[in-house]
């Protein structure tokens, strides 16, 4: 049997159309991740969802559904607010928001690493993967002290990793960076203070990222007015 060009020209697209169309009919033509993560095959964690399978296209809500880590917690860990619509925020969008710095970058692998640490599951991050400083208080009670200590080398402040565009936007808002009664720990981290610096100023470990600094001081017998000015000095020095 002889095959001519005109026959191939018709046959090849038809084979593709039938192949794709046929699999569409049976719902086999899938072009995006199912959002059902792979599980650990063996070991102590067999059967549990593997954070290493988090894809760039996963939104924080997808992660909440698959791994039971609240989207709000992930948003806090990565310096996002409600304005960012964090439930729909996709992991890969972190790479756009935060540029790479010399020490590494914040992206999808950072989310995998954070989720693994938060759930105390094994995961080996890429060499240049960084976490953001607001994630440290969230992990404080969930990981061993030596792991928390080792995270210091893998943590950047929001300020350090903000992309040029976002940085210039932030610069316009430096006048808003006033430490007030309603200021939260997350805001302090967003303004460039590290967890350690806040701890040093307060004399105790900082409270939850979303909590008010003043309320936390009152609860712990610290005079807010005395630390407020020091915190403000630190904030000003970093911006």
């Amino acid at each position, binding site marked *: 049997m002889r095959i001519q*060009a005109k026959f191939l*020209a018709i046959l090849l697209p038809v*084979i593709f159309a039938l192949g794709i169309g046929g699999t569409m009919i049976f719902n086999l033509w899938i072009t995006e991740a199912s959002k059902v993560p792979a599980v650990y095959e063996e070991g102590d964690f067999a059967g549990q969802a593997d954070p290493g399978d988090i894809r760039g296209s996963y939104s924080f809500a997808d992660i909440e559904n698959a791994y039971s880590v609240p989207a709000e917690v992930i948003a806090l860990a990565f310096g996002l607010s409600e304005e960012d619509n964090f439930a729909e925020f996709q992991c890969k969008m972190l790479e756009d928001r935060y540029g790479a710095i010399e020490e590494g970058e914040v992206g999808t692998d950072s989310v995998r690493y954070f989720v693994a640490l938060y759930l105390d599951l094994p995961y080996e991050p890429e060499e240049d993967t960084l976490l953001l400083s607001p994630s440290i208080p969230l992990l404080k009670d969930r990981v061993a002290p030596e792991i928390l200590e080792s995270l210091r080398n893998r943590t950047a402040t929001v300020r350090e990793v903000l992309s040029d565009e976002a940085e210039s936007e932030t610069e316009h808002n430096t006048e808003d960076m006033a430490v007030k009664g309603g200021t939260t720990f997350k805001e302090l981290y967003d303004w460039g203070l590290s967890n350690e610096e806040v701890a040093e100023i307060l004399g105790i470990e900082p409270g939850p990222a979303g909590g008010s600094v003043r309320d936390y001081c009152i609860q712990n017998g610290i005079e807010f007015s005395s630390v407020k000015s020091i915190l403000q000095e630190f904030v000003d020095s970093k911006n």
Partner: protein
Amino acid sequence: MAKKKKARRIRSAVQIAFFILIALIAVNHSLDEAGKSIPVLSSASLHALCPLGGVVSLYQYFVSGTFVRKIHESSFILMWIGFGIAVLFGPAFCGWICPFGTLQEWLGKLGKKIFKKKYNKFIPSNLDKYLRYIRYIVLGLILYLTAVSGTLIFADFDPYFALFNFWTGEVARAAFIILGAVVLLSLFVERPFCKYACPYGAVLGIFNFFRIFSIKRNAETCINCSACDKACPMNIKVSDKKKIKNHQCITCLECTSENSCPVERTVELTSSKEVQG
């Protein structure tokens, strides 16, 4: 001669159609991420439409039942379609469908105008025949590294991905450099990436040894003019063989009596044992 031009135009039309289709889908993927896609048209990522993604996922799929990150069922389906076509016609995917091969051909036309008869003859054949196996090394490396890492290692070096995603910010610098090199080399050599580096072409090339429809030459009617040799973009010497069993053949039909061969029914794509003169 008009008939021959028509046969060549038929393949060009198919190539253009697939090139435009893939380009539109790539643009639509970006639009979709921005929340405003073109209706009806697919907004799949380029990875989801890459049959090589299926090939590099094979190991992980059989070991753990999952796909390599960024690869989905669609890549697997396209891989099997590509294999099905290759069983019948060899790497016709390369010669008729692949938009990256098409781009290289377009640039090659410019190269032919610049270098005339010297075009596609810069590399000595003694060296060239060994260089053609580099793509199998590339394939082996990609298969191994993907199996070990579970990530789409090739994406960071993929000039095809760079071509259709250059505006997205997702393309690695190495991929841009390789794309630039391929564009430049295409002005000197016909389809340089296909010949020396394409891992998918390497896989499909194996089918040339047992495909059902092959390029065959009728030695009795052949006038030994070597028009078929000159026409072959992959520099295969057709004129001294009865049947082409070369891993580099892309079934473009340039050598056939429909295109270059001046004698009717002498070089053909056929399932018959011999070409009927």
